């Protein structure tokens, strides 16, 4: 048989039927649902008198609108509250499993899926959320969909789609001190661009990827969408299996052994052909900081804000000029001299236990700089929060002047009360630095948890490889 890529294996295992032009009906194993992109889908089902195809495939949680303080008072914004209540009532009506706001298992959908073992290798995983690519860290075919497709999966357990091209991003070697999965992600996007992965699924491979924890792999796959790829993925290895063992939704006993045997086949075969291969030397990757309003506008922390005048491409030059104006930055400013107003450590990219630990190591025994108005740590789930508290991380953060919050999407997209004011500059561990993303007029610099914590302490970005 022809050597297959991991993507090939996942794809062909889920084809129900195929049209003449290659459009296939793909079976979906796991459907994650949140409050923002599901109400219209439930309404559509109701209007058409349709039922859920397989209720047990769905796991729901409210994460975008939930407050990160004062949970006992409920949600004060009536519009946000209605959206969360609509999810609650839809789940109750259709018998869908839901972790409600005050359930300890509640959290960001892309944190809780893997945490519960609801994401398993070999699955197709979808959610009305672009960062569903996160789950590909488990050798699942996972991608974000729109609300019409949410309804389509609810009603048919399938999606209509075409096979993408396959890209392999190979990162070999050892990461330097202070360099993380987030820096790999940003360096990849900086090289291939935010449209570089459009039309592709990306497999991350190489010794540096194998050396990453599952948390690190999730961070990397999470940002595949920021490179334009709907899906990112990593082959199964012992890290994958060890992470999943004993999780509530994972199989056990004989079924576990049978599953593990299958999961070990989930890797690209020797000699499998990719449409594109991009290589990186891990040792050459430095801590990354974005300077503009697109994740591809990124440089190493020891670099400078680029000068649009040196750019030959008119569209790129125009975008860079617009970005510098919005960001309130001057060309050639050293990145380490950029002073910040706020710090956000959280999001589906970087709010897992390992991220909390990494930031706490930097913050321990230090204090947030006087020019930093707010430094907040928002764990990705109630269980991450609990684990961090068991390890005393909350006390380290609070002693250092950080706020320790309740889990949710929070200031990644500022749908709740956590947002930047116009002109405020933020070191953020989230995934998007778009204009207005963290609040209208807010200025976002995407960084790793280590860099965010270091910037909070210093009041500006810091070359973490030198400290």
């Amino acid at each position: 048989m022809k050597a297959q890529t991991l993507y090939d294996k996942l794809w062909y295992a889920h084809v129900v039927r195929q049209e003449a032009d290659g459009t296939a009906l793909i079976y979906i194993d796991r459907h994650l649902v949140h409050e923002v992109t599901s109400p219209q889908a439930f309404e559509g089902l109701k209007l058409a008198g349709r039922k859920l195809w397989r209720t047990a495939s769905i796991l729901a949680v409210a994460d975008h609108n939930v407050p990160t303080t004062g949970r006992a008072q409920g949600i004060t914004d009536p519009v946000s509250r209605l959206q969360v209540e609509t999810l609650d009532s839809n789940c109750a009506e259709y018998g869908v499993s839901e972790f409600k706001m005050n359930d300890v298992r509640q959290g960001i959908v892309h944190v809780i899926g893997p945490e519960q073992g609801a994401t398993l290798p070999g699955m197709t995983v979808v959610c009305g959320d672009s960062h569903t690519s996160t789950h590909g860290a488990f050798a699942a075919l996972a991608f974000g969909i729109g609300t019409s497709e949410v309804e389509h999966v609810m009603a048919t357990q399938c999606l209509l789609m075409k096979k993408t091209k396959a890209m392999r991003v190979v990162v070999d070697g050892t990461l330097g001190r202070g360099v993380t999965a987030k820096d790999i992600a940003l360096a990849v996007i900086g090289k291939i661009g935010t449209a570089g992965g459009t039309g592709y699924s990306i497999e991350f491979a190489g010794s540096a990827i194998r050396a990453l924890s599952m948390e690190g792999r999730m961070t990397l796959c999470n940002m595949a969408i920021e490179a334009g790829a709907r899906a990112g993925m990593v082959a199964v290895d012992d890290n994958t299996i060890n992470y999943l063992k004993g999780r509530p939704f994972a199989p056990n006993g004989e079924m576990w052994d049978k599953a593990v045997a299958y999961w070990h086949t989930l890797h690209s075969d020797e000699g499998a052909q990719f449409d594109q291969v991009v290589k990186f030397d891990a040792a050459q990757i430095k801590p990354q900081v974005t300077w503009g309003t697109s994740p591809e506008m990124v440089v190493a922390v020891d670099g400078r804000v680029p000068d649009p005048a040196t750019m030959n491409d008119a569209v790129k030059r125009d975008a860079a000029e617009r970005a510098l104006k919005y960001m309130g930055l001057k060309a050639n400013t050293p990145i380490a001299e950029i002073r910040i107003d706020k710090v956000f450590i959280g999001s589906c990219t970087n709010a897992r236990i390992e991220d909390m630990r990494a930031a706490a190591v930097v913050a321990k025994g230090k204090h947030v700089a006087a020019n930093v108005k707010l430094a907040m740590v928002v764990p990705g789930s109630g269980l991450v929060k609990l684990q961090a508290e068991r390890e005393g991380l909350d006390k380290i953060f609070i002693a250092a002047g950080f706020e320790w919050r309740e889990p949710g999407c929070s200031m990644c997209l500022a749908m709740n009360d956590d947002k930047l004011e116009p002109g405020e500059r933020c070191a953020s561990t989230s995934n998007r630095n778009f204009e207005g993303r963290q609040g209208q007029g807010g200025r976002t610099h995407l960084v790793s948890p280590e860099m965010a914590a270091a910037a909070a302490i210093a009041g500006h970005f810091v070359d973490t490889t030198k400290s």
Partner: protein
Amino acid sequence: MQKFTLLNGLVAPLDRANVDTDAIIPKQFLKSIKRSGFGPNLFDEWRYLDHGEPGRDNSGRSLNPDFVLNQPRYQGAQILLARENFGCGSSREHAPWALEDYGFRAIIATSFADIFFNNCFKNGLLPIRLAAEQVDELFKAVAAHVGYKLAIDLAQQTISVPDGKVYKFEVEAFRKHCLLNGLDDIGLTLQHVDEIKTYEVKHRAAQPWLFA
């Protein structure tokens, strides 16, 4: 879903790359539990000088005179002309809902982000990819002629410009069929219930832990 067959519409140019879905419809409007009514808040942060909130009456808000869609010559535009990677970022279908609600029926760009591209077809909105040079030509033509219109024929896969030139464009056969006929995807898929059930039995036998 509304059909798309022929469109002879006014073109509005949005000359920037990487227009993301946060810009197309900012997050505060995603709190709505409805599919309609997003048009007045399309490009809200670029279009208005003040901050918009859901439920607020937009008629009295101050418009940003520098934003292209606010210029009198582009009022009533049905075709949006854009650059590369249009619709990147969030999967929010509120973006095509807002574009459609505003009055756009087609978007011509160098490239589109995958999820946005897909979402357009579910809402009777036609996204058309043209080569960068062709998009450049169109930006120049729109700037040079007030009231510049294009005629799009989906069946023929052509865009005709006023001087008679015709651009061909690609569209997948299945998507084209659905758009031309205004077909509901779910209805189509449910014609294959037996095949889905057969697959499910086979899949369950191979990976029983997925159904535990």
